[in-house]
């Protein structure tokens, strides 16, 4: 409900041409939530991952976004997305080497506004899926807020939580054994061959394969539409 109020307020600014077209189109698409009875096979999921300069939501920046879509259990390579974000003030910080992105790569990327509007065009009103989704969503929201005063309104699924929910039930305390639900550990458990770790697109592709298996598992637990999957 609050989402709807914010969306309408921002759309009002669109009427005054105060926001870019991509943002307005995105807001339009997200006015209505996905109906709870929508069958899983009809939902377009966008599995994504961001790479950042660090883990501080307030100060760190996104340096790349990678994503791939999944619909009717099929990962669609032709419908995938990858963008490098130019960050001028990136120093020799740890995250940079971890992500395998050289500073010159980051310098060749596009600016934050172009990157994020491209991403919004790509996701539309799809359900977003990410490993430890909270962090990635917060990073994108931070960027959107700074530039456009908006945030993401999509439904979100966190693969770590979904795995936990399917394996242990919804009330298991994740905090105890966080290690079990890291991407590496989950991939190993679900028999997914690891590769390309630490590029956002590579991780998004791994996460998509993981989510594909989790969806197959959810069907066995009677999860068959948007309502039961998103628990709303």
């Amino acid at each position: 409900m609050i989402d709807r109020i914010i969306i309408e307020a921002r759309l009002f600014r669109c009427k005054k041409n105060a926001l870019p077209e991509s943002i307005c189109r995105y807001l339009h698409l997200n006015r209505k939530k996905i109906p709870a009875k929508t069958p899983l096979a009809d939902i377009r999921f966008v599995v994504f991952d961001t790479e950042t300069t660090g883990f501080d939501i307030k100060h760190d920046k996104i340096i790349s976004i990678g994503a791939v879509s999944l619909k009717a259990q099929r990962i669609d390579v032709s419908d995938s997305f990858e963008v490098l974000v130019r960050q001028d003030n990136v120093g020799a910080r740890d995250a940079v080497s971890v992500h395998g992105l050289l500073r010159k790569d980051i310098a060749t990327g596009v600016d934050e506004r172009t990157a994020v509007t491209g991403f919004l065009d790509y996701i539309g009103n799809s359900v977003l899926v990410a490993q430890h989704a909270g962090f990635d969503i917060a990073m994108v929201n931070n960027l959107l807020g700074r530039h456009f005063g908006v945030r993401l309104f999509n439904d979100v699924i966190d693969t770590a939580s979904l795995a936990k929910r399917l394996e242990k039930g919804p009330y298991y305390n994740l905090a105890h054994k966080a290690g079990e639900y890291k991407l590496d550990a989950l991939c190993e458990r679900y028999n997914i061959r690891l590769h390309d770790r630490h590029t956002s697109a590579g991780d998004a592709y791994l996460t998509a394969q993981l989510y594909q298996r989790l969806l197959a598992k959810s069907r066995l637990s009677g999860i068959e539409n948007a309502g039961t999957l998103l628990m709303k």
Partner: protein
Amino acid sequence: MASNTIVERVAADLSNYPPFDVLEPAAVQDIASSIAIHYHEEGEMIFRKGDTLREAAFMVMKGAVRLFDSIDGQEVLVDLCDEGDIFGVRAIFGGSIYMLSAQVAEESLIYEMPAEKVRALIAASNAVSMFFAGEFAKSMQVMERSLTNAFDQHKLRYSEQSCRSFLEHETLEVKPVTSVITCAPDISILDAAKIMSDCNIGSILVVSRNNHPLGIITDTDLRKKVVAQPGAVNERPVRDIMSSPIYTITGNKTVADMVMLMVKTKLRHFCVTEDGTPDSALVGIISEHDIITSEGNNPAVIMKEIMASEQVGQLKVERDKAENLLRIYIRQDVAVHFISNIITEINDAVIVKAIRFSIAALELEGMRMPGIPFCWLSLGSEGRKEQLLRTDQDNALLYADPPSGREKETHAYFVALGRKVTGMLEQSGFVLCPAEVMASNDEWCQPISVWIGYFSRWILTPEPKALMNATIFFDFRPVYGDTTLAAELKKGIFEEMSRGRGFLEFFAKNALQNPPPLGFFRNFLVEKSRDHANEFDIKSRAMMPLSDAARLLIYEQKIPDYLSTVERFQKLADLLPAEKDLCLEAAAAYEFLMRLRVVNGLEQGGSGRYIKPESLNKIDRQMLRNVFSTIGQVQKTLNMRFQLDYIRD
């Protein structure tokens, strides 16, 4: 715009398997960028027989999918696909519905390739086009054309070397190249490279001041050690990158010596020095190229040595050399029919020589040749000119009917001759036949009237088990002596056969005893009965069904020539226009199997008969699957032709 990282990842997975393994990276990336990845749990159906075709073909990236037909409510397994196998290709070539059902046999990751993309790829690439034509034929369950295509593809992969001619040549020695380009160890890499490029040579020898060899620099060294290193290495001295020490030998080495050395050391260059050590002056160099193209490395030379030999011991030496030759030919992918012709010539020469030695030896013992013509017969695979490896000897002796009163002494002489010859062949490396089907056996050393009696019994009162053991006799071929005797025997056989047609049906039943397996699934052989076996007997499961079929048809057509299985199928292709394609496919299939068996036999040092499925690569497995379907088709044709009530399984 698709994500490059993901596309590259998918492309890397695709290019592990045919046909994508031979495509340009850009073409693989193009198809990768259009792929959808589907995950299935065990038991899920991907499509069912009768479903409308999807606009995609499928590749198993992980897991396994079973394809089955439903006939009267019964499921009949048609194929089991594992990693890298492509199925559902009907969609690419049109049609309306699936002819088979595809079910996930264990949790699987399936790549869906849009049909239009695959069509574009087929239009652009010959290799892909032939690959899919083969896959398509399989999916149609019409096997006629699949194999020819698969073999064309095989040829694309392994470019076939042209056959060598039988050139007469005197020497067996490999002549080293004596005008060797050398350099000092302290010249720069750049200078060495310049010399190599100026003289257009692939390697340069590094020598000391007094011309002792120190090492060698080859193209490979330049590529791997120079180009691969960062920084300015060009100015460094050649001694830093040369391969050292170099293998030194004395001169006057024979081809056989060099081949052995090459196989043993896995080196490509050998340096000839005055005393064979690195501490004497350089004389010349012998490279792999010199050894392989050496005129001494010639079957005619081996033949000549065999014919000129004076002792039995030499026969083994020369036959061992022939095996080296076989190794080289196989490594160079020389056509199998050419190899088998050569090896047969050599085997025959060994036999001829053994017979001559034996006659002389018997004479020394006071046994004189009775003035009665005889003919030495090779049987079984040697009779079919297919004995590439020295497996069991199968032979027989046929002589003209002696005048009455001389039967006993004649028989005694020829049995003695048979014993001597088989003994000598054993010394030359041909194992004795465990079933004693040899000329040394009383039973198989007989005058022509007795032989015609044997065949008459097999033909007129055929008994399945006896017939099974007798098939090798039907492949007899004269190797020494009076060949008119052999021709007479063949004529006698045809006469007996025209009296009893029932015999051909027995022969046909025998040829259908072994239905081929479906293919391989990982390291297992997939049988129609759905059982898996982990050991593959290439002789009884693939070669015998084909050689049995060829023999049957060639006798049905009353062809008197002494032919190999491949030659038989080629002949049959002319004689039976309706089965032309199938016959040619069967011929190609048999050649493929012979090569596979020889490669396996040379690697394992045995008969090569049992193949470990894990030693086969993906393309060999796919080839074998095509071969199996050809065998199935051949058997189906025999079944109809001889109207057998042959019930599958």
